[in-house]
């Protein structure tokens, strides 16, 4: 079933069928070792000041429903496995977003033995959202750009 869907998507993609402008994005968040700052700010984009769900951006409970895997934190050795499992569970087309400086591998603090390196070393990163942590406005800006 899964394979068939993937096949269908590939055929559609190859045929370059005209599709409407995408209007929604389902985002699955994975905390791969963050300080919780990025989580607070990602939560804040749903507050009444920003209310990103009105643009069709939703946080979904399962990677099976997700278009984007939004990852925070330097990837710890203990989270590398679950992170990969979440990515593997996503249907195509899928994108990975690195949320925050840790996920981008900038100035990461910690013991090297406990970290596998930046997110880039584990998964292909498509969207980069810088900041420590990025403000809700910055997150909104980058995710809305992802809608295009």
């Amino acid at each position, binding site marked *: 079933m899964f394979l068939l869907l993937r096949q269908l998507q590939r055929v559609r993609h190859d045929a370059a069928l005209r599709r409407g402008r995408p209007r929604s994005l389902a985002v699955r968040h994975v905390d791969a070792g963050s300080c*919780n700052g990025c989580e607070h700010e990602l939560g804040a984009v749903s507050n009444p000041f920003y209310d990103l769900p009105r643009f069709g951006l939703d946080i979904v409970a399962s990677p099976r429903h997700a278009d984007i895997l939004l990852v925070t934190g330097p990837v710890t050795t203990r989270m590398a496995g679950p992170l990969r499992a979440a990515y593997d569970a996503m249907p195509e087309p899928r994108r990975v977003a690195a949320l925050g400086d840790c996920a981008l591998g900038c100035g990461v603090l910690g013991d090297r033995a406990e970290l596998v390196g930046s997110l880039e070393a584990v998964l292909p990163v498509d969207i980069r959202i810088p900041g420590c942590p990025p403000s809700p406005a910055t997150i909104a800006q980058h995710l809305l750009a992802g809608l295009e």
Partner: protein
Amino acid sequence: MSAVETVPAARWREAVTSALAGGRFAGAWASAGAWRAAFAARGDVRVLSCPAQGAETITDLVEAALWDEREAHDLHGLQFAGHAPLRPLVAHPPDGWATVVSGDGVHEVAVGPIHAGVIESGHFRFHTVGDRVLALDTRLFYKHRGLERAASGRTPEDALAYVQRACAACAVANSVAYAQAIEDALGLWPDRDLRVSRTLALELERLYNHLHDIGALCAGVGFAPGTMAFAALKERAQRLNARLAGHRFLFGTVAVGGGALALDADAARAARTTLRDLRSDAAAAWRELEFAASLQARLDGVGVLAHEDALRLGTVGPAARASGIREDLREHSPRLYYSGLVPARPRAETGDVAARLQVRAVELQTTCELLDDLLSGPVGRGAATSQAEPSALGVGRVECPRGATTCIAELAAGRIATLRLRTASFANWPAVAHAAAGCLLPDFPLINKSFELCYACVDR
């Protein structure tokens, strides 16, 4: 300056027993061949030390030391005679669960490490019969970054970054506890300006945390109006943080040996006005919650933490006060600017979700009053001046939004030799598992959010 009392391994339990008679356990840590524990009574801290080799367990004397011993075993290879079974805490066994629950109709429900919402990573293993939770196994440390180890060997100024980034929501409390530990070791004492500046940052942190935690509890029962009202209030508090300190989580507002947050009279006056509006809106939002029957019906008698269990498990903060432990470190913080503070009390010290929520609401009011007072004039940066002889070990203790956080810093040749950050969340996780036992599984999000502990500052 904290003196260390060294005892032989054979006398460890005896020394701990006598220390417990005079104070509450505040943490234990491994330090270059030694095993040490701190005991706090009001503002005073007593540190005991024994050789790490041959140390006996103290978990039967003080159950709050359970996680400390388990962590020291996993991270430093220490063994504690009599601690059996010594279950892993940080090192996750590749298979199997430490708690074995068997019987008719018992099954396991696995949750995490990745959760359904925007939540930190950690694994919960529920052993249930039907919807009833028999036991909860919490497996945390998925986010262990080895921050304490990485900070070792650095100068106290450099190591501050590691403490600050341990947890965003407790960044100020952890940093102040760390700065106090270093200053304690170096024999420095903060002047009035520094005490005011740090207290201001701590209360601004408590303000947005408590607003967040009340909103999160509403989310725990799916009460969207409350969630949104408090999310909006928290946003306003964080925007104020950004205006005052240039950072929504107040990063960079604490320095070692001096202040890093200063406000002129105009900025303080403007912040005071903003806070007065925020305070009346928060009071109105809280009133709405009090009269929301669908929310209130979910709170009473759920996730009860009895007074004696809270004492036994070493619970701290709003959770402890909800269970009738009338303690708040802010009462005894001479290095900060508090006076006459009375620990918050719920309407009834029932130790349930309702009581924990009420404690936060009461503390929210106190915090607003404190902030109003702190912002009555300009805030200076301040400094810490030499007052005593330097020593090799310092202890800092701060009441963070979740309770008492203890930081221990040991110095050698001007650099960090050992760093231990024992946060309120670390102290309180065992209480979450205890409160969840016997409850309904669907009530767990609510129980968990009534404690609202961090994973980041436990895992470090």
